[in-house]
């Protein structure tokens, strides 16, 4: 419905896809989700029931979700991810509240605030936990893509005095309806309270990697992006027969995703012994995108200090109401390992399967036990990667 300045590119891509479907060159299954991968086959929930697709080559493009950090009160109705606020606006033409506070960090923070304002929503404050100094320090490398920087600065200017850098979030005050105010302190340490009825939270993106894990990919902790990412070569080859593309493997954004799709396809063709396009120029472009993306990650970092300082009563797992205190206690009794903390505290066992708590959980484990975040290991994924209604699963199509 409503796309931003890149709508031309998005339209071109969708049109190309629609043509391939219309010409029967691809077998397209809309509204279907892969919930498990085992023994060279995908287990898929389709509108007609369960289906199994065997494969000998698999290209996974699973994208990313918002990366979240727990803020006291974030479990309440009316607190959403920044991505949610953007989807609501673009796909439904709605604002998720009448008086909005957006908080977190990353390019999406400014973008969503700008888009909401432009469409007539009311924004009370935009609270960025990244200090201005980090943003300035990352600028030289960000200028590898000057057009994007200019666009970002122009949008930021439109936010005016609503935008605050270097804030510390203290909590979301809620009544029975939902958020009533956000408590925070500004870069100088002055306490502030901003009334609102909706809060959007997010700190950049988190690669969605559960299927890659089930497909047998190895992972490395990436200090820059502060998360685990699947191990691949430059073209996206992971393990035998499995290729990864898009934000699910490196957080390079929309242009980078398109590029990495092309590279993965080229690798797949080459491995099949078919003629593949020359990728040298694409690889150079990818290197430039990565330099930019890593600068972004430094400009708008994961809020490690905020997570570590979370009061014991803060809910870390929104699914089952598990608190920071319970996670800390489990780390002391169970040891500094995420899977053991999971079995003791249930952190990561809820219906989102750790997507929104795993990174914060590891931060808490590391802080409590004096170890490095990467030493806490990642949660082993389990099929199904999202809850499946049992009746739909029983129905074989």
């Amino acid at each position, binding site marked *: *419905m*409503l796309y931003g300045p890149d709508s031309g590119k998005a339209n071109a891509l969708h049109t190309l896809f629609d043509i391939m479907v219309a010409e029967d060159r691809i077998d397209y299954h809309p509204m279907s*989700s892969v919930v498990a991968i085992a023994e060279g086959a995908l287990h898929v929930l389709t509108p007609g029931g369960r289906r199994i697709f065997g494969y000998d080559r698999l290209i996974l493009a699973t994208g990313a*979700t*918002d990366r979240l950090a727990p803020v006291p009160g974030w*479990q*309440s*109705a*009316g*607190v*959403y*991810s920044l*991505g*949610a606020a953007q*989807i*609501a*606006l673009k796909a*439904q*033409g*709605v*604002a*998720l*509240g*009448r008086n909005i506070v957006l908080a977190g960090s990353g390019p999406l923070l400014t973008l969503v605030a700008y888009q909401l304002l432009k*469409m*007539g*929503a*009311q924004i009370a404050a935009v609270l960025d936990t990244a200090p201005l100094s980090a943003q300035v320090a990352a600028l030289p490398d960000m200028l590898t893509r000057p057009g994007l920087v200019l666009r970002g600065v122009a949008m930021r200017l439109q936010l005016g005095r609503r935008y605050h850098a270097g804030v510390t979030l203290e909590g979301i005050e*809620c009544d*029975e*309806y*939902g958020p009533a105010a956000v408590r925070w302190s500004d870069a100088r340490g002055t306490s502030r309270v901003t009334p609102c*009825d*909706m809060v959007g939270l997010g700190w950049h993106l988190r690669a*969605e990697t559960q299927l890659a894990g089930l497909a047998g990919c190895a992972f490395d902790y990436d200090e820059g992006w502060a998360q685990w990412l699947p191990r691949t070569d430059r073209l996206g080859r992971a393990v035998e027969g499995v290729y990864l593309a898009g934000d699910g493997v490196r957080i390079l954004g929309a242009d980078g995703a398109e590029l990495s799709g092309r590279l993965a396809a080229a690798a797949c063709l080459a491995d099949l012994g078919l003629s593949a396009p020359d990728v040298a120029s694409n690889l150079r472009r990818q290197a430039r995108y990565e330099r930019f993306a890593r600068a972004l990650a430094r400009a708008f970092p994961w809020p490690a200090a905020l997570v570590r300082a979370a009061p014991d009563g803060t*809910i870390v797992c*929104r*699914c*089952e*109401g598990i608190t920071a205190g319970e996670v800390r206690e489990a780390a002391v009794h169970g040891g500094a390992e995420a899977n053991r903390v999971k079995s003791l505290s249930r952190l990561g066992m809820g*219906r*989102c399967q750790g*997507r*929104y708590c795993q990174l914060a959980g590891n931060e808490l484990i590391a802080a409590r036990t004096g170890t490095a975040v990467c030493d806490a290991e990642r949660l082993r994924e389990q099929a199904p990667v*999202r*809850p499946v*209604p*049992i*009746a739909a699963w029983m129905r074989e199509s």
Partner: protein
Amino acid sequence: MKPSAQKDFGNGRIVRLVEFNRPRVRFFLNGAEGEALAGDTVLTAILVCSPALRRSEFGPETRAGFCLMGSCQDCWVWLEDGVRLRACSTPVYEGMRLATEAPEVWP
């Protein structure tokens, strides 16, 4: 557009900013009739007239979805016949009968 131009279709949490003129769709929530617009998700349809989707099983707060992209599972609601839905990724349709608590029916 000024905030005053926002149109309220009820006393819910969501406000429509554009496309007020899509065709009307009638649905039922816990037996009560509600009005949505064609193209709305179940989440939009419910939250335009209500502040939340459901109660939390683990705390005192209510829930109204979180990610809107099928990832967090915070937005579960039910059809009256017991089928569970993700409100954020299910379109509302004319005559749809929704419930915010799991009905006592085997799914």
